[in-house]
């Protein structure tokens, strides 16, 4: 998949500028103190962020274009969704090792380019179990992590 460099940069810069405006507005709610207060530093930074984001946008629009390559967008989406699922399941059920085993096995299964399904399943289950077991032994037992 190819994405326009100009469009993506303009979008990112506008998001940075929006973050700057958000911060600038929030600093207005900070209590007034004599001299250099809690709003001083973030206020200066937010104004600089808005300024440079607009400058970078203008420079990008005037400069040369091109595309950025995002190969295998399905895999990118899969990794991101796996992360979201991992955090959601862990948060929802509070079962770290079970969640880990499920998500790791799922990732190993879907990302393995092997064609033989049976082999894929057995490799995913075996490697998933070994990784989870190692985490249990190293972090759970030796280092006393409270998952």
């Amino acid at each position, binding site marked *: 998949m190819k994405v326009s460099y100009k469009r*993506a*940069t303009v979008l*990112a810069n506008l998001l*940075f500028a929006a*973050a*700057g405006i958000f*911060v600038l507005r*929030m600093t207005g709610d*900070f*209590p007034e*103190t004599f*001299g*250099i*207060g*809690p709003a*001083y*530093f*973030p206020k200066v*930074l*937010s104004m*600089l*962020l808005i300024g*440079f*984001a607009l*400058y*970078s946008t203008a*420079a990008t629009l005037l400069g040369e274009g091109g595309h*950025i390559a*995002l*190969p*295998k967008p399905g*895999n*990118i989406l*899969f*990794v*991101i969704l*796996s*992360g*979201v699922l*991992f*955090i959601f399941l*862990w*948060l929802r059920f509070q079962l770290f090792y079970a969640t880990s085993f499920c998500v*790791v096995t799922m*990732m*190993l299964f879907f*990302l*393995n*380019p*092997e064609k033989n399904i049976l082999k894929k399943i057995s490799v995913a289950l075996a*490697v998933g179990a070994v*990784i989870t077991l190692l*985490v249990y032994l*190293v*972090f759970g037992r030796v*280092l*006393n*992590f*409270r*998952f």
Partner: protein
Amino acid sequence: MEIFAFDFLSLFTWQNVTAILMGVLIGISIGMMPGLGPTVGVALVLPVTYTMGTVPAILLLVALYQAAEYGGSISAITLGIPGTASAVATTLDGNPMSKKGYPGKALGYSLYASFCGGLFGGVLLLVLIGPLTKMAIRFSDPEIFLIALLGLVSVVGLGSKDIPKSIISVIFGLLLSTVGIDVFTGVSRFTLDIPSLSEGIPFVALITGLFAVPEVINLATGNLGTVYVSDTKNLRVGLSLREFRPVIKTILKGSVIGSIIGIIPGVGPSAATWISYAEAKRSSKNPEEFGNGAPEGIAAPESANNACVGGALLPLLSLGIPGSGTIAVISSAFIIKGIQPGPQVFQTQPDLILGIIWGFILATVVVLVVGKYATAFFARLLTIPNYVLLTIVFFAAMIGAYGTRFNLFDVGVAFTIGTIGFFLSRLDYSFPCFVMAFILGNLIEVSLRRSLMLSRGSYTIFFTRPYSIAILCIIAAVLFFTICSRVKRVRQEQKP
């Protein structure tokens, strides 16, 4: 000589020696895996240090950093695929020498150059730590603010492709560092009523997410079934004195270049390797041999990247300013142990700092021994397929983010920042600039506000003190150098 006023027996405890050995073994393994680098390695191993003592914890991390710089050359030489960014220059001559049937010799040049460079960086650290600390102790808030500013100017000026985007990265990093309770007034800033944000954005989660998650996604976009296979028959690392003698001068030059560049915040070992390589080629009697397996072409970058590690530790241990992302993660290990790195630590706990420096030198020796006898074994580890590697890194990153505070919120932060970071890195926004700014943000704000309170709001406090003027001159020199190099590059691009 206060550097020798150290109880060396305290260094050779089983905890310290085990930490160094583990650091070296993990460092070489991570360094040679294409895609993973020392920063990811240090971030992933950080949770392991929580239950360790301060000295072994830091030694584990610095040994890992040092070993990863050598490890990067193993895959660069045997496969032609650099394990780390700073091993790219090594590929140019290391792989051709390997293809000629001498992988063991190529690895020998790399190993001995890495050892000499690492040793040079360590000795320089040992020699300069005392004088620099004595100078730094006289610094007050205006000087601290300007030194931190120098770090940001260096990282933007010397290490970025797109300056406006690097500046945006710096400002955004500084802005994120203001999240949490204001230390002067106790006012809660940008916490959005989330209790986990009252202490600010968790640093370890941010670093782990920013460096590990984009690597995981990058690996997922590549060939997932890739298994790197190399000929492990001729990998016995060996070099005679007759073969080593011609590269001694190159190694010395590379070590000096690497150490100096390491000291400058934000530049990093990659730049050091290319400058060292270019200098070796320029001063060589046979420059035409470069690119075809010249021993100097391996020795120059490898001595530079290892010397850089010692150099990069100097600003952290003497001034409290981490000069790179990897050093920043190491500095977080200090903070977790309740120690704020800086000149005060050397004054109050000299044994701690000297223990770390001597341990770092010991780690360099261990890299030499392990590298000599176990490189062939490490090369076999490259047979892990990418889809397994990315799953392990993903999982380790999540545990690393969780481990500091045992808070699931931190895992969410790491994952979100890492995912956003992946897309922003594709658009040339700078990670090193962002990380440096985030690390230095608190120091910059506190020293700036204190300075302005002292001067009752007058900015002249930064221009009227001798040390401040000297630091301002250095900042001006860096800006001048940056502008000159940009103008030169634009002129070169405009030439037909």
